[in-house]
């Protein structure tokens, strides 16, 4: 049977979470179809058809789909469902907002936030904020799944030449209108997707001091993250929050600065390959999971690290 992946995008580019989800789909079927619901997405359809793993790109292009209102997009997905054994979406706020409506419309139970695929019907997912791992099996007519992007590699974006199919827009009566989106613009890599993440906690003491972290992040071409404590203290916006109530990240290098390591923060970053903790409190629980710990005043340590990195760069060049 075929697998349908619902694309997360901004009408111009696919989000990397879509590429992770396609990799997950590869474990289920060779016949992967990518569904793009959006507005003015001809270019997006063209660029998406080169994804090697995708056999068909299905696009529904309509101005009402500009802002991803789930009441409008979910019936279009449900309408395609009978052709598929599995329907996948990333377990980002996009997928979480959308796919349960399809569950209601198809009367099947969705499986959320899958981190592993054992077989066509057996999946692995974290529960209790990752403090337990559950193996679940289902024999429903169709498997609705959201996929945790950081648990699957990104698929190749080139090398393919998929067919493109246009499907008609199905209108639904919707009482919700989009007003605005407040997105923080940054030249740094996307938090969920960066190779290096530099995160700050309450130890930073105020929002001005976060500038130190930005400097370090820029040296490492890293994304900036934050603990919930730092977000709640108003040092930085919630979209930077890493943890159970924020984003899940799994970069190659995670540098936790002035973060004590509350369970809820660890839930969001403990899958990182290498973890560095910098904290003046030797008792901080973050040191229990860090590969490299430095017990030091961060206001001294960060400028020193930047200096050392500059030195390294000089030696190399």
């Amino acid at each position, binding site marked *: 049977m075929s697998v349908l992946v619902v694309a997360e995008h901004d009408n111009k580019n696919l989000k990397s979470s879509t590429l992770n989800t396609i990799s997950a789909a590869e474990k289920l079927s060779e016949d992967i179809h990518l569904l793009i619901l959006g507005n003015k997405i001809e270019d997006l359809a063209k660029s998406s058809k080169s994804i090697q793993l995708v056999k068909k790109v299905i696009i529904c292009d309509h101005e009402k789909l500009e802002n991803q209102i789930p009441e409008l997009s979910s019936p279009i997905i449900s309408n395609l469902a009978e052709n598929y054994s599995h329907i996948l979406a990333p377990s980002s706020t996009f997928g979480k907002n959308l796919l349960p409506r399809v569950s209601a419309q198809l009367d099947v139970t969705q499986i959320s936030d899958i981190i592993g695929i054992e077989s066509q019907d057996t999946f692995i997912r974290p529960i209790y904020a990752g403090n337990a791992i559950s193996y679940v099996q289902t024999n429903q007519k169709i498997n609705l799944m959201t996929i945790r992007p950081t648990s699957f590699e990104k698929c190749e974006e080139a090398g393919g030449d998929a067919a493109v199919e246009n499907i008609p827009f199905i209108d639904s009566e919707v009482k919700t209108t989009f007003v605005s989106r407040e997105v923080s613009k940054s030249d740094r890599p996307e938090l969920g997707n960066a190779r290096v993440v530099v995160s700050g906690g309450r130890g930073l003491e105020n929002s001005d001091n976060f500038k130190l972290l930005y400097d370090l992040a820029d040296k490492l071409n890293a994304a900036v993250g934050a603990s919930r404590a730092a977000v709640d203290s108003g040092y930085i916006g919630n979209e930077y929050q890493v943890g159970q109530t924020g984003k899940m990240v799994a970069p190659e290098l995670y540098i936790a600065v002035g973060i004590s390591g509350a369970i809820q923060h660890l839930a969001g970053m403990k899958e990182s390959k290498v973890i560095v903790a910098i904290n003046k409190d030797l008792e901080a629980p973050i040191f229990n999971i860090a590969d*490299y710990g430095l017990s030091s005043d961060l206001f001294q340590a960060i400028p020193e690290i930047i200096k050392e990195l500059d030195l390294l760069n000089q030696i190399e060049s």
Partner: protein
Amino acid sequence: MKVLVAVKRVVDYKVQIRVKSDNSGVETQNVKMSVNPPDENAIEEAVKLKEQGLANEIISVSIGDDKSQDVLRTSMAMGIDRSILVKSQNTLEPLAVAKTLKIIIDKEKPDLVLMGKQAIDDDSNQTGQILSALLNWPQGCFISNLKIENNKVFISREIDEGIENLETSLPAVLTCDLRLNTPRFASLPNIMKAKKKPLETIDIDTLGIDTSSKIKTLKVIEPPKRKAGIMVNDVKELVQKLKYEAKVI
């Protein structure tokens, strides 16, 4: 306006989770249980709507065994007027929870349904969205701000990129983010008063819906433990290790 809040009883968020030795699930016996944290935000928001004179009746609903009365009493101590417990011995999946809530909503006819964005035990993050679709009411998920004026509903949603602002109308289903408000502590007099507030009990078997599990849990295991690494003496050593040992910079 009448507001209905859905509340789940879960293992307290401060409790260290223990996987059962037979790998059948997570230990919930003799463990402190509490209101699911974002459901507390939903309760708080309902109480605020009543204090602002926008809501005239606020009720809470929970689905679970007799012990779930605790969380309903807590909600009433925070200011909820009355509660309904739908008694079920089995743990329900989100689809069955939403179907159960829909029956209660069809009967109670609230104008607004509030609940937490996800339960911190199963972490499914589905019930509000499913309920919205079943009712064919507008959906507002992960909200961190709510304003209701002349039957118009203005919400801010926490999304991965930042914040999304939407306008919608009542009736609606809204799921609450922890950032929506700061739940109040119930005072002792209010805890005493809550004991006298009405709590209706309904047996789930009388509702005539399919609540059987569609998903079988094969096993529950502990996550792989991460070993603590080493402490470095200074920045120089740290940068050297990252460069030449871990090779990540």
